[in-house]
């Protein structure tokens, strides 16, 4: 937050005589004090939305993009990459996105407890337990499938679960950006699944990853409007 044009404003607010028990000079000063203090607090407690959306968008764009280039429809790879590379890159980037989200959230909300913290915690459990239970079933089926169908099954299920949980998150926090992103992910997952093996990762990379980047920019814009004093 430091270095932003807002920081001068914040400094002005905190330099008010702190031991002063006297009332604000007039009604206008009182209103300014309220607005400045509320927006400064919101800025400090609300992490930059881009840091929550963009790392996942990049992971999908690059990870699924590489997967499409290596395993496109048909037998001919579009790029000569080692077969292990796309999934490795995808999982490394997803792990990095998760770590970024954890650090950013703890910094912002770490010292706040109560209903919000409980919501976040339960939502996290839904992701963890939901993923484990779904993938355990998939693992037992996919070994009996040909490579392209197994890949489609895994990615369509993972993307579908992500879409559903984003919608659920939107419902929990009444966050329309999050909810709309969930709807978008679910719809493009459907389109990718209909398009079939080979095409699904392309749809997820471009429309899914791109959608997350757009959603992050929109969420950031809304956040800035909300934090205007």
């Amino acid at each position, binding site marked *: 937050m430091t270095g932003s044009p807002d920081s001068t404003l914040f400094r002005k*607010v*905190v330099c*008010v*005589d*702190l*031991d*002063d*028990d*006297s*009332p*604000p000079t007039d*009604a*206008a000063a*009182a*209103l300014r*004090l*309220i607005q400045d*203090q*509320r927006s*400064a*607090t*919101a800025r*400090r*407690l609300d992490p930059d939305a881009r840091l929550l959306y963009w790392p996942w968008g990049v992971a999908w764009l690059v990870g699924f993009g590489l997967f499409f280039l290596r395993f496109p429809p048909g037998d001919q790879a579009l790029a000569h990459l080692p077969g292990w590379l796309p999934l490795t890159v995808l999982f490394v980037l997803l792990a990095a996105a998760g770590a970024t989200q954890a650090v950013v959230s703890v910094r912002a909300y770490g*010292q*706040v*407890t*109560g*209903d*919000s*913290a409980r919501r976040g915690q339960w939502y996290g459990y839904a992701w963890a337990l939901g993923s484990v239970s779904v993938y355990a079933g998939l693992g037992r089926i996919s070994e009996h499938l040909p490579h392209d169908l197994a890949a489609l099954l895994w990615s369509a299920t993972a993307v579908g679960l992500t879409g559903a949980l984003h919608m659920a998150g939107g419902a929990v926090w009444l966050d329309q950006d999050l909810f709309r992103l969930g709807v978008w992910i679910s719809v493009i997952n459907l389109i990718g699944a209909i398009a079939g093996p080979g095409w699904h990762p392309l749809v997820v990379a471009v429309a899914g990853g791109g959608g997350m980047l757009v959603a992050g920019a929109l969420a950031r814009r809304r956040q800035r409007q909300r934090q205007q004093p």
Partner: protein
Amino acid sequence: MTELDPVIHAQARLRVVASLSALNVGDKIAFPRLQELLAMTAGNLSVHLRKLEDAGYVEISKTHRGRTPATLVGLSRRGRLAFEEYTEAIHALLDPAPSKEQP
């Protein structure tokens, strides 16, 4: 004209209450983090919090995080209401009801 709530109508306490009002309903913030947000000394903040707590506007709970004791501060329902009324009164002072100005 409505009287302004004397508990909130002091610069330091108004800043404390305004900050706490930015938390979601049902949330509390750790004392050191609040202190950092307000850039107040611990002693000064404690004094004002006590006045707010005496008025029933602020709820303070002591708990443990692992082995370290932690003090959590949040606005009570009454405090949130009082802050909203105060803000409305300020708005009314700045912008008196337009109906009065109509001929």
